[in-house]
């Protein structure tokens, strides 16, 4: 029994270490990609020099290495890590909270809401806050992304329904919002359709440092809160009745978690568009290696999701180089088959 516990613990440590190592290696390799040749180890040196305030002459080789790495390449890696982690945490928590293996952060219709927000900004030129600016578009996506969640929560509250109702309400909202987006795009010019399309498939190509703070803060705080709630999430796995008998206010707890998830997901979708399967697949794979205890599933999912999205983005950038594919497309190509394999191989005891 003790040996088995040690093996189980060792497997957790190994899995988490491998995810962390993958993030460092894939991230380091991603930093070398580009016309300007910067070696794998050199990238870490340049980052260190930047952090320690080493200066260069304007437009000298050192200046350009630092600039290209810091301003062009590093934001993409950082955003991939944050978005991957946030979506995977969202998936893990969502699957626990609605007790459904098919749930992911988009289940409540957040993605469709965010896309409608972006479409409204692009096609009608109407945005909340900074009119017409990129930040206005992001704010649109964020606010519109929260609307379907609010509706799903309201429906669940009004009908006092089961967790499955959340998914059904989210699905209904998704159809409604997708129809609204399509209606707007039917009358739009080709250039605007193309711009809106990029949000629908998800890409990390245009991310910058400006995109990081909001996404990072919301994901970090959301992740910490969810980790704090992990014991309660574990209770939900035993069913609502059991959780209630153990003193959990199930309905209110579920609403709080949904709200946190929606905020985290909307903050990510607003900047990078819809990147599917990270939230769906990552928790499943993590559970295969370290079990269903959310105290470990949530942080491990964060690391796995970050590594998963980084690797997918590397593939997206290299498969048709010098061109690149939206990472959302690559993620669907990888995530779809993996999910099918997981379904076929899954053991009943996992849920």
């Amino acid at each position, binding site marked *: 029994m003790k040996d088995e516990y040690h093996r189980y613990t060792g497997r957790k440590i190994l899995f988490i270490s491998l995810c962390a190592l993958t993030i460092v290696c894939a991230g380091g390799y991603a930093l070398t990609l*580009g*016309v*300007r040749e910067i070696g794998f180890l050199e990238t870490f040196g340049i980052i260190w020099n930047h952090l320690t305030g080493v200066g260069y002459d*304007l*437009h000298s080789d050192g200046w*350009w290495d630092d*600039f*290209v790495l810091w*301003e*062009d*390449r590093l934001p993409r890696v950082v955003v991939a890590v944050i978005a991957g982690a946030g979506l995977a945490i969202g998936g893990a928590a969502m699957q626990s909270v609605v007790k459904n293996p098919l749930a992911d952060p988009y289940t409540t219709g957040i993605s469709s809401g965010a896309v409608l927000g972006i479409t409204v900004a692009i096609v009608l030129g109407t945005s909340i806050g900074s009119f017409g600016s990129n930040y206005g578009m992001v704010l649109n996506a964020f606010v519109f992304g929260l609307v379907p969640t609010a509706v799903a929560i309201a429906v669940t509250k009004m009908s006092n329904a089961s967790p499955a109702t959340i998914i059904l309400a989210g699905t209904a909202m998704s159809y409604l919002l997708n129809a609204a987006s399509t209606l707007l795009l039917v*009358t739009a*010019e*080709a*250039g605007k359709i*193309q*711009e809106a399309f990029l949000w629908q498939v998800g890409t990390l190509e*245009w991310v*910058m440092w*400006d995109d990081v703070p909001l996404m990072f803060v919301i994901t970090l705080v959301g992740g910490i809160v969810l980790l704090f709630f992990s014991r309660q999430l574990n209770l939900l796995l035993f069913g609502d009745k059991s959780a209630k008998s153990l003193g959990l206010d199930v309905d209110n707890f579920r609403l709080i978690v949904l709200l946190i998830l929606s905020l985290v997901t909307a903050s990510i979708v607003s900047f990078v568009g819809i990147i599917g399967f990270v939230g769906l697949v990552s928790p499943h794979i993590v559970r295969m290696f370290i079990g269903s205890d959310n105290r470990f599933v949530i942080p491990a999912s964060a690391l796995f999701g970050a590594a998963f999205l980084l690797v997918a983005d590397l593939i997206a950038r290299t498969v*048709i180089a*010098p*061109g*690149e594919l939206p990472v959302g497309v690559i993620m669907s190509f990888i995530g779809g088959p993996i999910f099918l394999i997981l379904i076929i191989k899954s053991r009943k005891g996992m849920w």
Partner: protein
Amino acid sequence: MASTKLIAVAVVAIVVVAAVGLVLMSGDEDSEYRSDNDQGRLKIFGNANNDDYLDEKDIEALESIISGEMEKTPFSDANQDGKVNQSDIDFVERMVDREKMTIYYLNNNSEVKSCAYPKSSVAALPNTTLALMKSIGATDMIKGIPGGNLDATMFADLKESATVMSSKATDIDLDTAADEGIDCVVVDYSSVYLKNYEQFEKAQIDVIRINAAGGLDSLDWALTVGYLLGLEEESQAFVKFSDDLLKEMNDKLETVSDADRVTTLSVTMSNSIGGIGSSSFVTSEDAGARNLADWTTTTQKANVGDEWILKEQYSSDFIAHTCNYSFSTTSDEIQEIWDTYKVYFEGTDAYKDGGYFIFNSNVPVVIRIAYQVEMYYPDLFEEGYASGIIQEWIDTFIDNLHEDGFTVGEDGIFLIKSDMVKV
């Protein structure tokens, strides 16, 4: 008698010298040319008298403004310190001397931007901007072009000499631009292009947003970019070419009475009809037509089966469709282009009466107007009028096509009319 002979010789000598002088003066007409436009087309701060030039006359204008004899003008605050005073005169004197310095200009988004003058290594996008750049003699300075399908005929020289700096038609890769030493990107004003412009600006690579595909204001950008690139003479030659043609067309159009003005709708892309204020709308009105579009949004689509375009109020004599197609389009290919686009308009009166026509959009605005005047007023503008102008533009400004002996009509068809295809 001798004195009479002397007087006769002197008179003859004076007449000959005067005649030679006159001949020389008339032969030097181009170099003496000076545009009288005072609409502030040259959007460089320091252009205090609002003309097409940055010269001593701007210093005189500044002196008049400072002394109160003249009102402030839009570009009189040369150094952008919020005041017009002696420091602006000092600043403009340096500009007149063409010193290397930071100057200020107004971009197409009406933003005041600073820019290191002059530029030497440029990337430009999209195709309409590149066409304008070639027209002002900037071909040799263009070191970076976007990916996508740039016309293989028009841009054959750039495809050889410049580096493709992105896999997309809408962007330039910062990494590549840095590697090639690009110091400036000239790009369309639409936010679709150069999404990561902030990174370029952080890297101190100037981003100059212009509207090369617009109406007559594209001439503003020819002058302004020409100045920023140190290509003033070349850009002014192109603007003179355009101004002369516009004057020629306007002189003839002035003879058309309001009652005789034709009506039209103007189409861009596949089926987007330009509304009031759109560049295609304005260009059609510049060509002397009355555009029947009565909506103020930029464009309105005419989808197959739409009823709205068949309404009486939109029943026009012509439908002018500006399209992006290859310079090397020959008679074998025009039917395919026609069939692609006719589906949206074949129910209209204009189409049924032979008033629908398609023309190549990748040419300067003056040529886009010329296509239309030729179609609208055949009594005033002979058949082939626009083709002649395109040929002149190519022979004067587009070196690679001129050197290849490109002949409009044979090597490329720019105007597709109903009598050239199976309707």
